[in-house]
């Protein structure tokens, strides 16, 4: 799934020719920059895949690595080093952007573990968005009617205060649901981080469905907010 990395894995440093056993962005011997090689967003930060992350430490490490890798540090280096700096920094930035944000981090880890999930699956299939969660069927039907009504009223320049109030109420309710999902997700993070492979599998499945539910709720919320704010 993850093809952010080049497949070529160098066995030795291009500059000092000393072999490396682990993937690294710098040669541990001569400190020269290395091309990106095997690994994932977690290994960029020397982390094992996990979900409860110390964000302050992540930021500090991001800054430390940026200082060393950024293309600004290689403006007058060889073309080859410039290219590697660019590739390494893009990888570092992609990794930081993904890991610092809870939902992106969760999706990323799930994909890493083989689950099919994420915006690319939802986004590429707009004709068939996520299935409506069963417990919400009735409410969503009702809500869509109200949204249509509201849009129609707006078109002719009318405003029904009762409808507005009802939609606002629905909005608050869905917001609360999103919060509940987030709380459940956090519980699963700890569950996943602390467990063995069998428990992890069931935790993963739970997170996949929580994320599906969350995406569905967010889309709904966006529609309501847009209609209310129009």
């Amino acid at each position, binding site marked *: 799934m993850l093809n952010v990395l080049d497949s070529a894995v160098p066995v030795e440093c291009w500059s000092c020719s000393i072999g490396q056993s682990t993937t690294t962005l710098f040669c541990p011997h001569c400190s020269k920059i290395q091309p990106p090689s095997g690994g994932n967003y977690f290994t960029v930060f020397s982390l094992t895949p996990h979900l409860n992350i110390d964000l302050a430490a992540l930021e500090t490490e991001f800054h430390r690595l940026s200082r060393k890798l950024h*293309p600004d540090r290689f403006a007058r280096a060889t073309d080859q080093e410039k290219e590697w700096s660019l590739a390494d*920094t893009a990888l570092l930035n992609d990794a930081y952007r993904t890991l610092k944000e809870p939902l992106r981090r969760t999706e990323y880890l799930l994909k890493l573990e083989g689950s099919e999930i994420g915006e690319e699956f939802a986004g590429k299939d*707009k004709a068939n968005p996520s299935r409506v969660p069963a417990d919400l069927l009735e409410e969503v039907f009702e809500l869509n009617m109200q949204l249509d009504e509201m849009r129609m009223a707006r078109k002719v320049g009318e405003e029904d205060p009762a409808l507005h109030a009802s939609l606002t109420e629905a909005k608050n309710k869905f917001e609360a649901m999103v919060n509940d999902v987030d709380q459940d997700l956090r519980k699963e993070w700890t569950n996943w981080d602390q467990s063995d492979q069998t428990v992890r599998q069931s935790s993963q499945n739970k997170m996949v469905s929580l994320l599906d539910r969350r995406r569905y709720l967010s889309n709904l919320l966006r529609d309501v907010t847009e209609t209310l704010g129009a």
Partner: protein
Amino acid sequence: MAEGRVVGIDLGTTNSLVAYMEGDAPVVIPGVDGSNLVPSVVALDPVPADGGRPTVTVGNTARKALIETPERVIYSVKRLMGRGLSEIQEELKYFPFRLADDVQAGEVPRIQLGEMRFTPPEISAYILRQLKRNAERFFGSPVTQAVITVPAYFNDAQRQATKDAGRMAGLEVLRLVNEPTAAALAYGLDRAKEGTIAVYDLGGGTFDISILKLRDGIFEVQSTNGDTHLGGDDIDNLLLAIALDEINAEHGIDLRLHPSAVQAVRKAAIEAKIQLSSEPSASFDIELPNGDRYQRVIPRDVYELMIEPILERTAGPCKQALADAGITPESIDEVVMVGGSTRIPAVRQLVDDLFHLAPRGKKPHVELNPDEVVALGAAVQADILAGASKTTEEILLLDVTPLSLGIEALGGTVARIIQRNSTIPASATEHFTTGVDGQTNVAIHVVQGERELAENCRSLARFDLKGIPPMSAGLPRIEVKFLIDADGILRVTAREQRSGKAAEIEVKPTYGLTDEQVEGMILDSFDHAEEDFAKRLLIEARNEADTILAAVDRAPSNPAWKLLSSEEQAAIARAKAYLIAVSGAPDPRVIRAATLALDQATRRFAELLMDAAVSTAIRGKTMESAGEELGDAVTAPHPMAAAEFK
């Protein structure tokens, strides 16, 4: 030590500047006329009598031609950079330039300037070349590397066009830096501090807002937003339109049919705008072609009502930037003001309101000259890139891409692959396959923007993945890597994974020049050659010497000469004799030193002339406009020669 100097360039809509790091402080490099600002105006001189190629002039000299030969002058070209035909046509409604009549759809539009035609990057290249020359004259050595600033909200095509312009001017553009970020660098240099700052940059033609977090010397942009179509020009155009309409209504003259009259009214409008930043009112007084006068007083409160809709357009981007950074106005510790238009009191008030400054006992930062702060920051970034400087070794800029990158999906919708405000460099990898058996090509349409439909976004390029091994439909797996580099420019690479073959990509940029076209537009390749460079410096030095010598020759016939003491007259004679003696020397530095000595010796005489000139020829004008008329021609670099200007 001058070897390999990197300069910072602010290529502005209205004015351009070049700066460098002198020790641990950035400094703007003045032009031959002593002015830090080079107006971003390019003019084509008349065709020479021998029928050769007309000379191109830049800056104040070019601006002067605006009234006499408006059809040979172009300004605000930044607004045309990286834009397509229809956008430029829209833009040109407000400017007196016209497109070349042979413009074809799909190519970079060219502007007709006199009998010649130029693409916007070529015009910008002339401005860059002038700045490059100013720096070379200042250092006495070639300058080949630069950092150039661009509005943060510039898209891929506008950035690429700016880089192309650099190359045409003989400059290796080491980095494009976003203007608000550069301004933050200029402000942040002398204060080791932490916090969140907003940079509000309202220039001549563009508006940017950036929110940055400062920590341990790292300037990390959180979000950016803006409008590449909003600035002081809009105020000028508004005042101009009102005046033209009133003139038409009151005097029955449609000045729009008289380009040079329009330029005169535009000049008056700009002067009124500047005056209204410090005075309670400004007045127009323009003589019309039929001898009538158009007179009008604009009180500041009326003016503020008129420009309110323009200024209000900056509020939306500010709010969006705050929302994207996930913060409230109260979280902003400092606001930095950039761009000449932030001198307008109503703009400062708006910023105060937007970021709740006054209630928190804060004021926006205006300590650094808003016209120079971007260039100063560019010089800081140039120093960072040059490396090996103690002042900047701890500083690092982490900027973001202002617009989301997406691919057109089925049904014309956009699949976002890199979100706006992602730290750059940033990358995304996507997989594509074929829809028909044996298909060997896949076309990808890349767009930039936030809208849902591709047709509403900015088309960046169409990539044609070729050479896919013939397979059953859906079997090939083409991995395409999109990478936005540190300049905010997209690069794409592709590989067919099943066969392991690197797929060939043909890129058709929607807007922009091909590499070969840029190559063909390089202004003067001799600029690179050391020998020619030395020759040029020598010619310039001799020209300067000739100019001042000619002025000194005329001096004794001027009544002011008698006011000098005999010692002063003798000193001038000595300096003159020395300059004549060395004017044939092969070293431009010797000639320039002698020129400078003569200039020093004649300083008092120049002052006397200035007094006389101010009290007669240019009476009633502000010092600013007097200065404008006095010292700008390249051939009149000295106060003395300048004062002779009639």
